[in-house]
């Protein structure tokens, strides 16, 4: 590889920034403490990125373990059925818990949201930087609980005598912690719920911060309806985070009390009601699904518009549909309980509202399509992921209609159909949007280019692997394959083989994406301030941004008006026309 001279950092007009001023948030302050004690939202976002990706890796390991177990219909890993099944049960439980609580809920808000929200507002930081750091440490502490649970489980397998010393390890309740199973389980349920409890605080603090920031830190000229749609999505997400997460906290607290204090709210032997636990749990966990998907939709709104180089279509409808989903999302939790013996009246209400949630989702998809209509579409990596998102979200969303229809749900509830459905929504949609966002904002976050070729190879592997893994599960589920089965009747064998092979392809793809990023950090070239020609405020500063985000606060304009940016072939990026933005130009030269 020939040595390429390091290109200079350029500002939004394509002019080199002199070395003195080229101080960015990555180089501002050195040493480990300047990171650990930072109040800078960008550094907190980066630290979140490292931790959340580590959690993703951990959850992925469990995914591979459980898919491998399912490659044969009978016990695969251990000859002893009890050991084998417990091992499988713990694998899928930890896969679910780690992926949900530690990866997918914080993924977009805590990484991309933290980094981009103040930049998009033209602000210097979020409203409460200290709370932001506290949220990171809550995340770390909550994750530590899960590592403890996991470590105990592993050591207990290696040294069985330890069980007598410190009790059961691992977690075998399913990520839903359903009572009374979780009340009686001998695994480390208490530690795991305590972990989820602390992780909930991390989520709440992020939500509080985002709401206050969006309310109070919008610059002059940025009314509510001139915010980038990503901010609308984060705002709707934050509403859910602050209204739903506390209920999870109290649910887990009651569960811990059940296990340690003989409280019997959910215990039938003590006059309690195990189904009430499901009400508690899903009052949080269904809205939590929208915590996962709403920011994803926000990312897609940005990417689709920028890579079609066309104003987003139906801004108001997209923004309001985010709020509608957030509010309606609170009223549908009972659709997880159609088979529990829930009252028919309530089931009908929940089913009806579930159906109506389909409409705001459909509105978004149609608006994205119309944005692409007569656009100027560039199939760069972020756009590929966005298109993949629309594909997978369409399937995930439509299969949700099957599950919302009462009579049909009775058949597919708790089968692989559900597994496939929520993986299409959570992984297919949220993960793809997360990857779209990462590739879209990567040049801004690190100021480095990445290999388009390998990033696209990564996309195709992930896309193919994902569909291979999960589409077949719809068929298995319609045939009646129940979920959470360590072993299964032979007639389902073929589906599981295909699914497991698909998961290996998916894994390879994810490692390719990771390799692209690592390669970029080491060998990537300096990117211009605005490589994509976007117009939201985060592109109105250098890449990577300086410590205070902006040397000069840019005036807020329509984030989807790209007409002021012109392509500069030398930079391979877009520069702002000085004629169009005299105020900003003047400020930059000052």
């Amino acid at each position, binding site marked *: 590889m020939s040595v390429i001279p390091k290109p200079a950092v350029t500002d939004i007009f394509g002019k080199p920034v002199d070395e003195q001023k080229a101080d960015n948030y990555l180089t501002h302050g050195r040493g480990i403490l300047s990171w650990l004690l930072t109040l800078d939202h960008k550094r907190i976002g980066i630290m979140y990125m490292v931790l959340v990706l580590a959690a993703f890796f951990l959850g992925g390991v469990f995914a591979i373990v459980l898919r491998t177990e399912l490659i044969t219909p009978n016990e695969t890993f251990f000859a002893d059925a009890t050991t084998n099944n417990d091992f499988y049960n713990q694998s899928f439980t930890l896969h679910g818990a780690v992926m949900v609580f530690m990866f997918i809920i914080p993924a977009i808000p805590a990484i991309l949201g933290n980094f981009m929200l103040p930049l998009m507002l033209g602000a210097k930081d979020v409203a409460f930087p200290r709370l932001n750091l506290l949220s990171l440490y809550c995340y770390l502490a909550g994750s530590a609980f899960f590592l403890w649970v996991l470590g105990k489980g592993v050591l207990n397998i290696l040294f069985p005598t330890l069980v007598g010393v410190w009790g059961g390890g691992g977690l075998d309740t399913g990520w839903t912690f359903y009572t009374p199973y979780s009340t009686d389980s001998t695994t480390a349920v208490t530690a795991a719920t305590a972990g989820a409890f602390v992780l909930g605080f991390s989520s709440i603090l992020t939500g509080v911060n985002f709401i206050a920031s969006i*309310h109070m830190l919008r610059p002059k000229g940025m009314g509510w309806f001139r915010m980038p749609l990503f901010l609308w999505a984060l705002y709707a997400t934050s509403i859910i985070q602050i*209204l739903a997460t506390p*209920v999870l906290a109290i649910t887990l607290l009651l569960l811990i009390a059940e296990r340690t204090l003989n409280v019997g709210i959910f215990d039938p032997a003590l006059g309690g*009601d195990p*189904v*009430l636990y499901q*009400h*508690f749990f899903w*009052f949080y966990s269904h809205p939590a699904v929208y915590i996962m998907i709403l920011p994803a939709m926000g990312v897609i709104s940005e990417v689709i518009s920028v890579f079609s180089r066309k104003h987003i279509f139906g801004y108001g409808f997209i923004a309001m549909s985010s709020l509608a989903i957030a509010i309606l999302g*609170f*009223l549908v939790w*009972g659709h997880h309980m159609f088979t529990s*013996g*829930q*009252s*028919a*009246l*309530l089931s009908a209400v929940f089913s009806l509202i579930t159906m109506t949630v389909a409409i705001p989702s459909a509105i978004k998809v149609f608006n994205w399509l119309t944005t692409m209509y007569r656009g100027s579409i560039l199939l760069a990596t972020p756009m590929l992921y966005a298109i993949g998102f629309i594909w997978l979200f369409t399937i995930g969303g439509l299969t949700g209609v099957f599950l919302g229809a009462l009579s049909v749900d009775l058949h597919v509830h708790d089968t692989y159909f559900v597994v496939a459905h929520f993986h299409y929504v959570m992984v297919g949609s949220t993960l793809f949007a997360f990857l779209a966002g990462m590739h879209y904002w990567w040049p801004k976050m690190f100021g480095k280019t990445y290999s388009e070729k390998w990033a696209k190879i990564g996309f195709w592997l992930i896309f193919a692997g994902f569909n291979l893994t999960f589409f077949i599960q719809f068929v298995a589920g319609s045939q009646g394959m129940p979920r959470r089965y360590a072993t299964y009747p032979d007639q389902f064998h073929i589906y599981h083989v295909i699914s497991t092979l698909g998961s290996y392809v998916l894994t390879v793809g994810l490692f390719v994406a990771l390799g692209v990023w690592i390669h970029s950090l080491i060998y990537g070239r300096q990117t211009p301030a605005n490589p994509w020609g976007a117009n939201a405020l985060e592109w109105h500063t250098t890449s990577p941004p300086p410590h205070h985000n902006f040397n000069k606060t840019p005036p807020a304009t329509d984030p989807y008006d790209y007409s002021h940016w012109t392509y500069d072939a030398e930079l391979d990026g877009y520069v702002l026309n000085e004629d169009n933005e005299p105020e900003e130009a003047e400020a930059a030269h000052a």
Partner: protein
Amino acid sequence: MSVHFEHEHHVSPIWQLAAVLAVLLILTFITVAVTWIDLGGLNIWVALAVAVVKAAFVGLYFMHLRYDAPFNAVILIASLVFVSLFIGFSLIDTAAYQDQFEQPVISSDAAGG
């Protein structure tokens, strides 16, 4: 700056705070006194109504909601709406299947014959 600032915030007069306290104390007495008479199923609702009135006084005056940015009140009301939604739906459901608890089952009848 600070001159401008003082006009921004409502300063509650002491008489107002004291009057609110007096009302709250009277309401506390009422809510205890109501338990001395039997209103059947109404008792709990009277107690809750009194509690709501008390809460409203605390919120409006002690917490300045009456003079504050309206959005703060919106937050409070929204949280209460969601709590009632949660409790309401859960109660509707659990009340609907009360008769399914601890029911005698068919086998014991059948076995007797």
